[in-house]
Structure formats: structure tokens, C-alpha cells
């Protein structure tokens, strides 16, 4: 049926297909965004409005829950902790992971592939199986409830992640770039820093952003390894949700949830240019 379709018909059906795609995109986005919308909405309701049936969309908004829980759940300190831990583990994992990825991509090491696979395999271990030994180690070292402990713990899953993403990115770069730099006066390390890193900046940044988001929302290790001083926001949410004495306070839960999401959204909007460029570059750069 290919021969008789006129160009006009084809174009029209193309336009129709385009519309269908847009509609599908909108529907999928709505499905994903609705819970977040509902969370923000709930966080602004009075406790009495939260459980009304049918649910209300119009009410007198209040930020009372925010004000109260900022104080009660020590949100400002947790926010700072989360930023420190996310930034620290993100930066550390990008430095170590990109170098490891580069080595796997370029340096001729016996068993490099096996080594890489083993490191990746370590991500297959359920985190819960690692949490308890990690806690014991941290306690022996006197490192419980410290930022550095969480940063190091997060690096255990972030470094393999960064390593594999950057490895494939580095493989896609022409080898001659470093070789040329090495002939032009660089050591291999110098060629990496002066040529490869600047070229890979979009890829490195998008990987950094993803790593930081993973660290930002991590709960299990934070729950096990911190207590009060270095505790992060997801721990606070878990605390509110798991309050068996007073029952879950949905207003508080949604308010803290919103506080968790907002910085990520702002951050993602700020860096979206890099994010998109990085993803595209990694896919196509020859």
C-alpha cells in the first residue's frame, strides 16, 4: 500500500501522528505530575480539609503546616545536611568514577572488563544487605551520625553508576585526541584533565546531577547511619509517616515532601540546558 499514498495524504497523516504524540505526551505527563500536584495541594490545606469526600480543590490555603514542621522536624538543618551529603557524594563520586571509567575505557589493563562487571555487579546487592554491615563498620570507627559517613556510603553505589555512564561516554570519544595531546606534551593524566574533561563537561555535569538527585532522595542508608546530627530530609518524612503514636500526619508529610522536591525541581530547571546537552552528547558524539 505504499505506492498510492499521495504526498499530501502522507503529510496530513504525519500531522495527525504528531498531534497524537503530543496528546499522549500530555496524558502521560499528567499521570506523573498529578500525585505531585496533589501533594502540594494537600500540604496547603487545613487538617480538616485533607480528608473531605469528595476531595476539595478549592479551599483557603495555609502555610501553617510548613511553619510548624520546619521547627518540629528540624527541617532547616536536615535540608542543609541533605545538601552537604548530596553535593559531597555527587562530587566525590564524579571525580573517582570518571577516572575509573576513563581507565576502563582506555588503559589496557588485564581483566578490565571483568573488573568493570564486578564493580557493576556490586550494585546488584540489595542495599538492605549492606546497610547493617555498614552500620557496624561505622560504629567501630566512631563514624555514626556524621556527614562523611553518608557521603562515603552513597559513593558505594554512585561510583559504579558514574563509572559506567562515563566509561561509555569516553569510549565514544576518538582515541586520537588523547594521543595527540600526549605527543603535544601531556602525560596521560594531563591529556585527561586538559582535553578529555573539558570535552566531556556536558556529560560529566549531567551525570553529576543524576548522582546528586540519587543521593538527595536516598533513605535506607541515611536511616541506618544517622541519628540526629547528620540526618537528612527523607529520614524526616519516614519519621512522620511511621509515627505510630499519633498516626501519620498527612499535612506534615506532604509539606515536607514538597520541601524535598522543590530544590530538585529548581536545580533541574537551572541546569536543564546541560542536562539535555549531556544526554544527547553521550548518545551521538563520534
Amino acid at each position, binding site marked *: 500500500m505504499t505506492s498510492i499514498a499521495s504526498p499530501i495524504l502522507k503529510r496530513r497523516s504525519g500531522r495527525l501522528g504528531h498531534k497524537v504524540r503530543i496528546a499522549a505526551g500530555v496524558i502521560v505527563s499528567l499521570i506523573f505530575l498529578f500525585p505531585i500536584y496533589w501533594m502540594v495541594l494537600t500540604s496547603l490545606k487545613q487538617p480538616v480539609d485533607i480528608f473531605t469526600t469528595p476531595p476539595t480543590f478549592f479551599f483557603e490555603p495555609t502555610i501553617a503546616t510548613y511553619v510548624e514542621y520546619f521547627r518540629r522536624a528540624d527541617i532547616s538543618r536536615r535540608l542543609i545536611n541533605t545538601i552537604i551529603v548530596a553535593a559531597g557524594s555527587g562530587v566525590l563520586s564524579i571525580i573517582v568514577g570518571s577516572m575509573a571509567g576513563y581507565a576502563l575505557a582506555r588503559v589496557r589493563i588485564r581483566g578490565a572488563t571483568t573488573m568493570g562487571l564486578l564493580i557493576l555487579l556490586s550494585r546488584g546487592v540489595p542495599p538492605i544487605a549492606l546497610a547493617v554491615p555498614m552500620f557496624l563498620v561505622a560504629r567501630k570507627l566512631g563514624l555514626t551520625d556524621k556527614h562523611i559517613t553518608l557521603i562515603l556510603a552513597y559513593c558505594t553505589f554512585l561510583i559504579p553508576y558514574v563509572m559506567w555512564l562515563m566509561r561509555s561516554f569516553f569510549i565514544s570519544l*576518538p582515541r*586520537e*585526541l588523547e*594521543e*595527540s*595531546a*600526549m*605527543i*603535544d*606534551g*601531556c*602525560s596521560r593524566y*594531563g591529556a585527561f584533565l586538559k*582535553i578529555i574533561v*573539558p*570535552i566531556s563537561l556536558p556529560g560529566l555535569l549531567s551525570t553529576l546531577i543524576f548522582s546528586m538527585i540519587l543521593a538527595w532522595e536516598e533513605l535506607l542508608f541515611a536511616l541506618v547511619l544517622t541519628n540526629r546530627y547528620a540526618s537528612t530530609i527523607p529520614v524526616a518524612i519516614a519519621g512522620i509517616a511511621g509515627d505510630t503514636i499519633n498516626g501519620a500526619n498527612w499535612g506534615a508529610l506532604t509539606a515536607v515532601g514538597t520541601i524535598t522536591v522543590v530544590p530538585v525541581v529548581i536545580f533541574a530547571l537551572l541546569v536543564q540546558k546541560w542536562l539535555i546537552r549531556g544526554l544527547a552528547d553521550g548518545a551521538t558524539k563520534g
Partner: protein
Amino acid sequence: MSTLDIHNVYKAYGSVEVLHGVSLNIKDGEFVALVGPSGCGKSTLLRMIAGLEDITAGDIVIGDRIVNDVAPKNRNVAMVFQNYALYPHMNVRDNMGFPLRQRRMPKAEIERRVNDAARILGLEPLLERKPRALSGGQRQRVAMGRAIVREPNVFLFDEPLSNLDAKLRVQMRSEIKELHQRLGITTVYVTHDQIEAMTLADRVVVMNGGIIEQEGPPLELYDKPASRFVAAFIGSPPMNFLEGEIADGAVLVLADGTRLQLPAGRQYRRAHVTVGVRPEHFELHETGWPATVSVIEPTGSETQITARMAGQIVRILVRGRTLVMPGEVIHLQVRSELLHIFEDEVARGSRVLHLQEKQYA
């Protein structure tokens, strides 16, 4: 400026040996082309000279220094890659100045050298552009500029023209030659294109299967190929080969029984020989070997005739134009001093065939 000596160099990746003992002495200021089919080891050898590959055995000497264990950056060689390897995040000026900045040269000196190179290569209007805003030929020039600002001991070129279109390739070829004549820097040039090698180099080194088949001035390789491989590789269109048995002293009997008279008065050591004739050495003559014309390809200055002779295809190149038509039977003659006779060297296996000392009438 420097000599470059390669002494009995081997290269193996694990148990796979790719270079089987290569020796080559390159004079100061000489232009040497390494040529051969892909996988012959020419690029590997070049990369070993640059220091990008380890040397399994043997020595590479630049000037009077053994550089086997010297890092690439300390060998004072400059290399131009097939894909140019320009640094995409730097503009042309920074690309060319990069090797000098790495050597912590004073800013003024860097500026002077980059401007000089840009003038020589006609890159002055492009100095602030990024590589992605340049055409293939311009990128190629920047890569050469980056090499010449170094004033290195040795220039290394790894198939630098392969990514350019045919017209630009010819133009850049003469630019490279001019540059070499002007700077007089020892140059090693790798290519799979024998025309490039012949036209550019003072000396051509033909490699095959990890060894040097033959080295010499371009026309010596053309006139006196040392093996059937070199004979087939050098020259375009390639040499015709006729295989057969020697009978009655000087008659070549081809597979289908056709008898071709060979020049008399020489001894053939073996019964089985291969006769090589370059397309341009055939002459049309009534008393020659008969052949049936199948295709005529005129290019104006010359005409290539494809014909069948004793079941085999032969190519004939005649100057100017010809009145010969497809289907016609022509007679081909070759002056005896232009015949190449290869005899199987059984003792060394059948790969290398030797040219018997030629008789010049």
C-alpha cells in the same frame, strides 16, 4: 631535524605478532612513505615511533637517542592524524599553540610561531574559529599547523589525506610536499595509497604482513619490484600477471594451453613462472600475443583497454586515442626488458616470489 633509525623492531599483542623484525634507516630531512594494505603494520610502526605503542623487541633511535622507553611528549615528534584530532573546545589559535603552551614557551614566542604557521598555511582569517566551523581541508591544515609550530625532529603523518575528497587530496598532497621542501624536516608518512606514496616520498617502503617487502626510491620500486606483491601494489592500473609453465626453453604455456613466446636466450630455473606486464608496456603489433578486446575506456590523454587473453583478463594502457573496437582481436607485444619474470621460491613458501635478475637487451 634528526635521523630516525629503526633496528629490528618487533611488535606483538599477546601471542599475536604483527611486526616481524623491521629495520629502516631514515636520513636527516628525508621523506619516507610507509605504504601497504590495511593490517600490514605500517600504522603500528608509526605509532611505535610516536611512542603510542610499546616496542616488543628492537630499538627505535631518534638522532642518537634510543627512545624505546621515552614518553611520547619527550620524543620531540609531531603527528598528524587521519581524523585530525583537533581539540574541539579550543579555537584554531589555541589548537596550534597547545603544544607550545605545554612546553611553557613565552607567550610572545607562541604568538610568533602560531602566526608564522598560520601565514604559511593560509589560516590567518580562521584563527578564532572552533574546529567544528572548519571544512575538512581547513581542519587538515590546522592539524599540520599544530605539528609545524613545534619545529619537531620528526614529522609523522598517519593517512592524513584519507578523509578528504579526491580534488582536495591532490591539492593537499602538493602542499605537504612543498612544506617538506621548505622546512626540510625528517618525515614518515603512512598511507595505503601508492600514488600518494610515489608522488610525495624520497623513498617508499612497501610493507606487507608485518615485514618490509621492499624499500627504495619510488621509480626503482616501479621499475624493479622485488616481489610479486610489490609489483602488484605499485603502479596504477596494476600490473598484469600471466601464470604458466615453461616449455621448450622459452615458451610460456598458460593454463588453457595457449603458448606465448618469451624472450629467448635466458635460463629459467623453475618450470612454473609468473610473467608480469605493466598495462602501459603493452604495444599493439601484428605479430604479438592475440587478445580479444572487451572494454574501451578513453580518458583523453590515454585509453585503457580491457581484453581477454587466453581466458585471462589483461589491462592495456595506450597513449592518446585508439581505433580499436570491443570484440576486435588485437595483438600485444612487450619489449623483453620490460617483462617481469617471477619464479616461485619454493624453499621460502609460496608467498614471496623472486624476480630473476633481468636481462637488459
